[in-house]
């Protein structure tokens, strides 16, 4: 039931955004640390090894932000599941409205119910708007489009670069061969 874990992870990411940033940073720094060690093993001095590892990594902040955005995004891409989510929210909103309206307005309980219902509906509205903006093109997928690439070095004399695009599948992967 990996989708349940993914959903729980999504909810957790919404509740503790700082934790997500720390988690991503730790992971990326671990990578740089490993690369530094490999460079040292390959004969570099520690300072050089560290500098080379950082340079090899590229734009740390950009990668970090892209990962954080992906981590905070909805845990699924399927249009059907998105529709299911919208329908569920609509049903919850409808039931909430009935629950709030179906009580004498002048009583303290009635007013409290209405306030709670307004709060819950407002929260759902904000969550859906934010989630939709992240899933839509121009969100993390856009940053990913620019980032994703593979390099291939077959003989030292030639290099190939493969650039992949966003998760929507709207653009192709591109390979650029360079030969000297």
């Amino acid at each position, binding site marked *: 039931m*990996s*989708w349940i*874990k*993914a959903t729980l*992870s999504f909810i957790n990411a919404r509740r503790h955004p700082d934790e997500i940033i720390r*988690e*991503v940073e*730790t*992971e*990326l720094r*671990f*990578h740089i*640390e*490993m*690369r530094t*060690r490999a460079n040292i093993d390959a004969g570099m001095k520690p300072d050089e090894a560290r500098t080379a590892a950082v340079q*090899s*990594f*590229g*734009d740390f902040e*950009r*990668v970090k932000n*892209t*990962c954080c955005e*992906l*981590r905070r*995004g*909805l*845990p*699924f*891409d399927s249009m059907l599941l998105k529709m299911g989510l919208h329908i569920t929210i609509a049903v919850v909103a409808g039931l909430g409205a009935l629950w709030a309206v179906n009580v004498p307005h002048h009583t303290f309980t009635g007013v409290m119910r209405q306030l709670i219902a307004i709060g819950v509906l407002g929260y759902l509205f904000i969550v859906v708007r934010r989630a939709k903006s992240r899933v839509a093109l121009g969100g*993390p997928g856009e*940053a*990913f489009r620019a*980032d*994703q*690439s*593979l*390099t*291939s*070095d*077959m003989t030292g004399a030639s290099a190939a670069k*493969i650039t*992949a*695009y966003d*998760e929507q*599948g709207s*653009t*192709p*992967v*591109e*390979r*650029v*061969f*360079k*030969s*000297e």
Partner: protein
Amino acid sequence: MSKSKAGLLQGTLDMLILKALSLGALHGYGIGQRIAQISGDTLRVEEGSLYPGLYRLERRGWIESECDVSDNNQRAKFYKLTRSGRKQLIVEEQNWERLADATMKAMRVV
């Protein structure tokens, strides 16, 4: 220096990551190393691509992560394939083989 461009199947990186993880759980750095290793040092995944790719695959439920201790006794995030990830890898491999076959057929035409 000359340059030529050719289109490739979308999702090549996804397939490589899934393939690397099909051989066992790994942290991000290890995945990059394994892809280099299994491709005979032909392919190197750039870090700027690898991590967003991992987070995207995790979001899709094809891989999952958990913290564990690495070889050098540091805590690290390890990724492993999920059941749906294993199924997806089979689909990706089949798609890739079809594309490669079709491309080869097209290239052999005189």
